[in-house]
């Protein structure tokens, strides 16, 4: 696509499942993976006579996200019915928000990779309920309503993103944000986060073009591919003198293309009106202060502060801030006296490898700040070598024990006693007089071989520093 000629406008509609114990409007358990149609009740199955009961935590988390995105918070929020028929939607209307969503007109500061940091405008943040799940099986469809009524938060951005790459970077920042806030897992592949996009292109300077909605993108990477594909496709249509139609297209991840799902029809009319079963909600001071208490330092701010405050590389900061738990562990370990750069190095290399190998998150692992600081302390004090330290780390994960205890139990501490080391060196000298002679005659290379023999003789536990010093003294004779 000719980027001189065309400008791309991408806006997102992001849905996240909120982390609550119960559903949005009833007390059924909100949990994945249970047997079909077990987390259901008359309310979420839309039985006659039942009424919605708003979940307080969902409301708090909704306000929290709106607050974190810098939205103007609604001082009188309300629900509305969005009317359309669909077999997986029990009431055939969705309780959503329309006129008074929890927040409007926000800004999310995002690190968009090569484009740098930019503010993406947030149109609104609103609460709603999820529908059930349809499983197509031959000529029938099976319905599971466990997910029906699950609390959803929809975040709608303005069309401020300019490319697939920017969109992917934005989504990753957004995922990090909701995880930091603890409001959602934000996993697109597991379905706890969904993202639809609208994209239009136009001649540069001419404003928005004809909007096309893209659905069915199940990872930030697919969103990037779909946006780039779609921008090319639209440019192609315009270049060949064609006209774009307002439509909904699906991303086909097997063929890496978008395909028409349906054209916009006159019969699409959601007939929104205020939900009479739910009175408006006016957040009071106590509510807002609970929201404020849930507020945390946001990822981008944290990354900047870590880089500024500690002596670490940008790459290390990138890795450390990715998960709030990692950053917290990092800062705690620093406060316990370990050197920032050393902690960062451990976190972004060896620890990361173990975590990847075991497929667990740092916060769920046996490693904590105290243990990491202790491990680094053992190295700094010369009690273990860097090489032994890696074994100790493995054992911390395997046994869930403190590094000191592991080193003691295994007898892994280094030999620093000059007497023992001198004795060991003399034994090596006695066994290899020819080599000793060669080194004394200037064959410096062979010194390393002697060190190796000393290590061998001490089961690798000789302190390299001290042993090296004694070796040099002994060589001088």
């Amino acid at each position: 696509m000719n980027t001189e000629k065309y400008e791309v406008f991408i806006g997102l509609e992001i849905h996240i499942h909120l982390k609550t114990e119960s559903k949005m409007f009833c007390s059924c358990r909100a949990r994945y993976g249970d047997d079909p149609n077990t987390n259901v009740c008359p309310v979420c199955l839309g039985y006659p006579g039942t009424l919605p009961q708003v979940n307080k935590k969902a409301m708090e988390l909704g306000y929290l996200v709106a607050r974190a995105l810098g939205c103007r918070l609604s001082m009188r929020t309300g629900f509305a019915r969005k009317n359309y028929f669909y077999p997986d939607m029990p009431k055939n209307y969705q309780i959503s928000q329309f006129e008074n969503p929890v927040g409007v007109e926000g800004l999310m500061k995002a690190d968009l990779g090569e484009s740098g940091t930019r503010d993406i405008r947030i149109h609104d943040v609103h609460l709603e309920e999820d529908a059930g799940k349809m499983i197509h099986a031959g000529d029938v469809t099976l319905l599971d309503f466990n997910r029906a009524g699950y609390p959803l938060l929809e975040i709608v951005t303005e069309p401020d993103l300019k490319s697939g790459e920017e969109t992917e970077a934005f989504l990753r920042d957004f995922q990090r944000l909701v995880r930091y806030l603890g409001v959602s897992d934000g996993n697109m592949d597991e379905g706890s986060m969904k993202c639809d996009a609208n994209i239009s292109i136009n001649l540069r300077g001419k404003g928005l073009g004809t909007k096309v909605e893209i659905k069915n993108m199940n990872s930030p990477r697919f969103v990037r591919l779909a946006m780039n594909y779609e921008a090319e496709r639209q440019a192609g249509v315009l270049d060949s003198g064609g006209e774009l139609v307002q439509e909904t297209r699906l991303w086909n991840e097997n063929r890496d293309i978008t395909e028409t799902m349906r054209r916009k029809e006159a019969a699409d009319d959601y007939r929104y009106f205020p939900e009479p079963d739910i009175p408006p909600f006016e957040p009071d001071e106590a509510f807002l202060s609970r929201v404020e208490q849930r507020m945390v330092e946001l990822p981008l701010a944290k990354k900047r502060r870590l880089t500024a405050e500690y002596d670490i590389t940008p790459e290390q900061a990138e890795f450390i801030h990715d998960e709030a738990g990692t950053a917290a562990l990092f800062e705690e370990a620093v406060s316990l006296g370990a050197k920032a750069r050393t902690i960062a190095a451990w976190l972004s290399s060896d620890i990361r490898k173990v975590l990847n190998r075991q497929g667990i998150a740092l916060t769920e692992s046996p490693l904590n700040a105290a243990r990491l600081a202790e491990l680094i302390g053992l190295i700094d004090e010369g009690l273990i070598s860097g090489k032994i330290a890696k074994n100790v780390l493995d054992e911390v994960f395997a046994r869930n024990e403190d590094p000191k205890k592991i080193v003691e139990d295994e007898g892994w501490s280094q030999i620093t006693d000059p007497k023992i080391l001198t004795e060991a060196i003399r034994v090596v000298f006695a066994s290899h007089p020819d080599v000793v002679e060669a080194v004394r005659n200037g064959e410096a290379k062979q010194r390393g071989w002697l060190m190796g023999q000393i290590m061998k003789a001490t089961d690798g536990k000789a302190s390299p520093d001290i042993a090296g010093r004694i070796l040099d003294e002994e060589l001088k004779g």
Partner: protein
Amino acid sequence: MPVYAEDWRGVLADPALCKIYADGVEKIDERIGSFLSFNAADSESAIGGKGSLDGIPVAVKDNIAVKGRPLTCGSKILENLIAPYTATAVERLQAAGASVVGKTNLDEFGMGSSTEHSALGKTVNPWDFDRVPGGSSGGSAAAVAAGLVPLALGSDTGGSVRQPASFCGIYGLKPTYGTVSRYGLTAYASSLEVIGAMSADIDLLQKAFTVMSAGKDERDQSSVDSDPPGSGEKRIKVLDIPEGVLDSAVAEAYADAAKALSEAGYTVESFALPSYDLVVPAYYTIATAEASANLARFNGIRYGYAPDYAENPVELMKLARHEGFGDEVKLRILLGTYVLRSGFQDQYYGRAQKVRTLIRKQLADLFQSADLLLMPVFPTQAFLYGDDGMDDYRQRVADVFTCLANLAGLPALSVPTGLSKGLPTGIQLMAPAFAEERLFAAARSLSKIYMPQLAPCALNPRSFS
């Protein structure tokens, strides 16, 4: 001869008396048709405690959920549905000692003023079997008037408790919106309706109301704690009715009631409602709009009627609704969908909500200098079945006096005022929010002149033993 609550205590607890009772109901209801289902000995309904309603059998309109009993709403689409839970209002009555004995007929989903729109049975007026019992809670009103129960629950969206109560010669209370939980009431127009009660015994009616309105319900977030404004100063304003609107019997009863209240120590003044002509259009716009969404859930998938065969889900839903809903329901869904459509919404639904504000303001102004309002219930007495009766359009327009209270969320009580030409007449009293106490007090004043009575065919519990 009036029948009091006391006469019923002990009937249900004694298997022999209970059998006599059930047989009596069966015999009379063969002709009246008030119940869609009846089971006096069902243990589920007898759960309960002891309290002010000990041993009182109660009939429940069949759009209110009672666990283990049918919940048909008078519709083919729910003909086979058994309620999996119990409405809060019913639970509270049970906890106070009352027992549900049966579910009563109604206009399908509460949409009608005659019970002619039930898909599942015909209910006649116990005073004249050629006439309608009123509606939509016609079955409940008929059951009370025929002495089959001393107390019945109905629901009142635009007059559906008060009008049938009046047609059958008993009291019908529409409480302040939100004082009685709607949890378990099949929704027709959520912002307008409330569960109400009917009885020929004003004390029993008040007890039932007190029990049902004892605090807001966690399951109905639109419910509220009652906040009574005090008993007031006995100032009544009487609505001016243009000549020719009321049948002569109704007009006469209306004038007599005003006189009777004046004699009972009330100061009586007249008033006109400036937005009188807007009441019915606003009411039906809002009611049908809400109904169009409330009834969308009935689609033949999770419960209820489904067609024998459908090729795809859309056809399944359409056929279930086509074959399952009656004409009046379809009409109201159609209208409600229309007034919400984009392009029309501002002009119809949006405007109706503003008119609603206007009407509420006018009523609030009236209550600045009045403690109660007196109005007719309906322009006619119970009308005849079929073509000699009243067509659907006229029935809807005739809701004007009753649906006013629903638009404003205010409490109102229809009070029987004796017989004219062998048929009951009645009037309606309306009070400010939470001032139900004033309604009961005024009704007691009138009961000294018009002693409520049951229909000649009525069952009498004193005859059981």
